[in-house]
């Protein structure tokens, strides 16, 4: 199952609490801030290793975030990659 999250804080926390084995999480919009290692929201570091974490490259770029400041486990996708994630991980839950 794919979780698309667009905010950090409570929204991200509620989503993370419901993740189970082999789920995929995609950080978009302001949720990409949670990808930064020094971010006050440390939920990404607490995720089980069988959870795949993706961030949308355009939202990272728009906010001036580069991968060097982010957790190593994070993978990056462009819009085509976004579509592939949706196609390969149905059903999709948008957490807003």
């Amino acid at each position, binding site marked *: *199952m794919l979780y698309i999250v667009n905010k950090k804080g409570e929204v991200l926390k*509620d989503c993370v609490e*419901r993740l*189970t084995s082999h789920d995929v999480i995609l950080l978009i919009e302001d949720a990409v801030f949670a990808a930064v290692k020094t971010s006050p929201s440390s939920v990404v570091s607490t995720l089980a290793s069988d959870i795949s974490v993706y961030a949308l490259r355009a939202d990272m770029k728009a906010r001036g975030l580069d991968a060097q400041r982010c957790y190593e486990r994070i993978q990056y996708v462009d819009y085509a990659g976004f579509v592939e994630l949706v196609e390969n991980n149905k*059903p*999709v839950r*948008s*957490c*807003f």
Partner: protein
Amino acid sequence: MNLIGTLPLVLDVKTLFFIINKGLQGNVCGQEFLDIILMAAAFDQKVVVLFEGDGVNALLKNQQPECLNLKNMMPVLDTLPVYDINDVIVEKESMEVYGLTENELAIKAAVVSRSDIKKQLRSADHLFGF
């Protein structure tokens, strides 16, 4: 071309999950979301309504949104069975967080654990939230 002949006779029925995870009073989205649920059921789709997180409070009795000049959603929730929506589930863990018991809920709903809900979500065709 005979368009009628190309239309499927039976609408493809999908299982649609509607997830209410926040209060219905905060803005107009909650009201719109309930409208979408009823519309999906009117199109004969298999509809499941799930309340979790803060959303469990939307089922409390004695809500008085009229004091803020807001629409009371309870009559809409009461009509769910009329639309053949009989799968209303509430996440057990969220009820515990708010210290709620089944008899405090205004409508009939099944209390289901987070892990069992996850199994149901995985088999759904589409999940909707707001």
